[in-house]
């Protein structure tokens, strides 16, 4: 079973036509990979489908805009993957 990072990196590579090898856990989706907000919607859609979750993009964006969080917390891929794992775990906890 692929790791969360492998799945996310594959989604990004395919959605944004970025070389898979250039996508690292430390990559910042916006600053390093150049993904804009519209492309990120496609990525969010693919992640939502792949993990059966709903990335809370609006809340994250609001927190960044309000200065309560940094983009690194949500858009550095290893951090994004940790959030995804949390959401999957929370969903499992609710369902159990």
């Amino acid at each position: 079973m692929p790791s969360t990072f492998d799945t996310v990196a594959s989604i990004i590579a395919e959605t944004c036509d970025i070389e898979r090898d250039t996508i690292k856990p430390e990559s910042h989706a916006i600053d390093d990979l150049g993904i804009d907000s519209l492309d990120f919607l496609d990525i969010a859609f693919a992640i939502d489908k792949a993990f059966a979750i709903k990335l809370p993009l609006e809340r994250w964006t609001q927190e960044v805009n309000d200065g309560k969080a940094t983009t690194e917390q949500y858009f550095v891929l290893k951090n994004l993957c940790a959030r995804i794992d949390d959401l999957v775990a929370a969903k499992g906890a609710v369902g159990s």
Partner: protein
Amino acid sequence: MQLEYFQLIDRIVAIDLAGRTIRTEARVPLESTIFQGHFPGHPLMPGVLLIEAMAQTAGWLVIAAARFERMPFLAAVKEAKLRTFVTPGQLLSLAAELVHEGSGYAITAASIAVDGKTVCNAEITFKVMEFPSPEFRATMEAWGERLKFPLEARPAGAQQHG
């Protein structure tokens, strides 16, 4: 359909919130200044306006799903296929399905049929956000009423006006 006012659907036929689908209809006008240029002597409904008609149909579905609390704005059109010509006077049967309701965005699949035959279809993405102002929301509610937006899909406070 009032092409010059960008009002591209005439009536909401049905919204199925459980099934996340909508059907609307619109009749292409027999005459419009648009046909003077598209094309002289050979009037055709412009493909971009067919796409806009699908977007408006899907947009009303997103509004209904959000109970008039949020407004969709067109963000992306994918796999748009204009399969055959649409001409003045034709009755369009439009349909859309809410494929995915994300956080701040929605993915829809929309199509238009004439006489039961699909003439175009596309996947349409919206950014979904707060109404820019209460006045804007009121305008959309009034527009929805003109289109016979179903009572059951309206916000609770608006049903008394329907």
